[in-house]
């Protein structure tokens, strides 16, 4: 199947996915399950990664800004903007593409090869809508929360370095964090994360839903889902940055 056919297939699947659910009660039940499985279960990894990366960025920024002309608070400012603009919305989403994307592709793919999706279709259920829409809705609504948590934990990580090492003083760090804050950057991070959430979920669902064969193909679909959604996130990141920040 060539790339154009794949895009066409993906669009057709999305048209089926965005229909009105057969039963709203079932949709909300699935939405809640996906929120727990894909969203809440990702909080811990998100917190750990963000905390340590925030701490490391702080140390590296300070080391690279050791010029006496530069004010000390610039480190805090740079850490804040790095987290807000790039690390939390983009890098965290790429990490989630690995964790959540592979989970979705393998789950949906297994359902496909064990005929569970055929069973849904034969019952008269719109299987794409029933399986994929709650995942997309859950991730688009929850990934922004994860990104906010990530920003917060990254800043805490930097604060930890300031508080417990002699790399930077807490006063300098906190001043930098508050200096020249642009509220739109938070909006920008949320918009990006919502778009990335859609990419992660829909691409992974597509690869899982269209898998043919057995366990080997499910594994391959899972890998393809992660690779392709990561590439798409990077490309979309460039476009959104150009559109929203310049």
């Amino acid at each position, binding site marked *: 199947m060539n790339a154009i056919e794949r895009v066409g297939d993906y669009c057709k699947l999305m048209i089926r996915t965005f229909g009105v659910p057969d039963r709203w009660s079932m949709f909300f039940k699935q939405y809640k399950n996906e929120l727990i499985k894909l969203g809440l279960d990702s909080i811990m990894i998100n917190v750990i990664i963000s905390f340590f990366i925030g701490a490391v960025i702080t140390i590296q920024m300070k080391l690279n800004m050791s010029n006496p002309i530069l004010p000390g608070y610039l480190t805090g400012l740079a850490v804040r903007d790095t987290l807000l603009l790039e690390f939390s919305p983009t890098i965290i989403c790429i990490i989630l593409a690995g964790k959540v994307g592979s989970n979705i592709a393998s789950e949906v793919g297994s359902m496909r090869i064990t005929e569970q999706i*055929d069973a849904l*279709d034969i019952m*008269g259920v719109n299987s794409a809508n029933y399986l994929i829409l709650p995942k997309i809705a859950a991730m688009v609504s929850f990934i922004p929360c994860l990104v906010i948590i990530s920003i917060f934990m990254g800043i805490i990580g930097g604060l930890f370095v300031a508080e417990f090492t002699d790399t930077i003083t807490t006063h300098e760090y906190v001043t930098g964090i508050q200096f020249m804050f642009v509220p739109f950057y938070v909006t920008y991070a949320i918009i990006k994360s919502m778009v990335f959430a859609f990419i992660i979920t829909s691409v992974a669902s597509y690869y899982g839903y269209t898998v043919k064969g057995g366990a080997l193909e499910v594994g391959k679909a899972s890998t393809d889902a992660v690779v392709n959604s990561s590439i798409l996130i990077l490309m979309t990141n460039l476009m959104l940055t150009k559109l929203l920040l310049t």
Partner: protein
Amino acid sequence: MIEVKHVSKSFQDGVKVLEDISTVFETGKTNLIIGQSGSGKTVLMKSTVGIYNVDEGSIIYDDKDGNGRDITKMNNNQLKLMHREIGMLFQGSALFDSMTVLENVKFPLDMFSTMEEDEKEARARECIERVDLTRACNLFPSEISGGMQKRAAIARAIVLNPRFLFCDEPNSGLDPKTSLMIDRLIQEITHEYGITTIINTHDMNSVLEIGENIVFINKGHKGWQGNKDEVYDTGCEALENLIFASELYKKIKKAHFIENK
């Protein structure tokens, strides 16, 4: 009743899998589609259900008033509604892994019925009881045996009182005793509810046990049609080779002739 009229089907590679198949699947009977692996019986079944679009011909389902509805001319919404009259038992049971047996059986009711929650549960339990699986209600599919999974899938297939029941190789992976039990259960349910049951199988025990209407598919063509009593003398060499391939079945055939004389 389902009437298949002059159905042909080929795939993208141009190979014709079905050619001019015409047959009738009768109401209240266990209709078997048999044939060698690769003969086209699964394609016939999937075309009849509407999973595959046929190249030519028509597949007509009767409604409650006896009027015919051609599944090959239905749009997606009509097909979706039609599928609500169909129950299907898949080769691998296709139970939802994340749900218990009770939740699996209740699922079609949750999706389509307007019953109250306790009514739904009562109906699901009634079907589970019908297939003698009450003790497994709260177990997940991975926690029960293959035979129990098939029975749970049968319960799910009949929970909405379907008018048509399709079974794709219901005995695959089961021991002979469990296979027989599943066959008899399907036959009992067919008679009890008066539904049109179509079973795709190459299990010759099933043919001789529950074959009330047998359609033999040979290399994409209909090779023979009859019932389990007529199967001993079909005059169709390909069918004879398929059914009486083993020494055991040859002996059964011989015994049948001696008994009849």
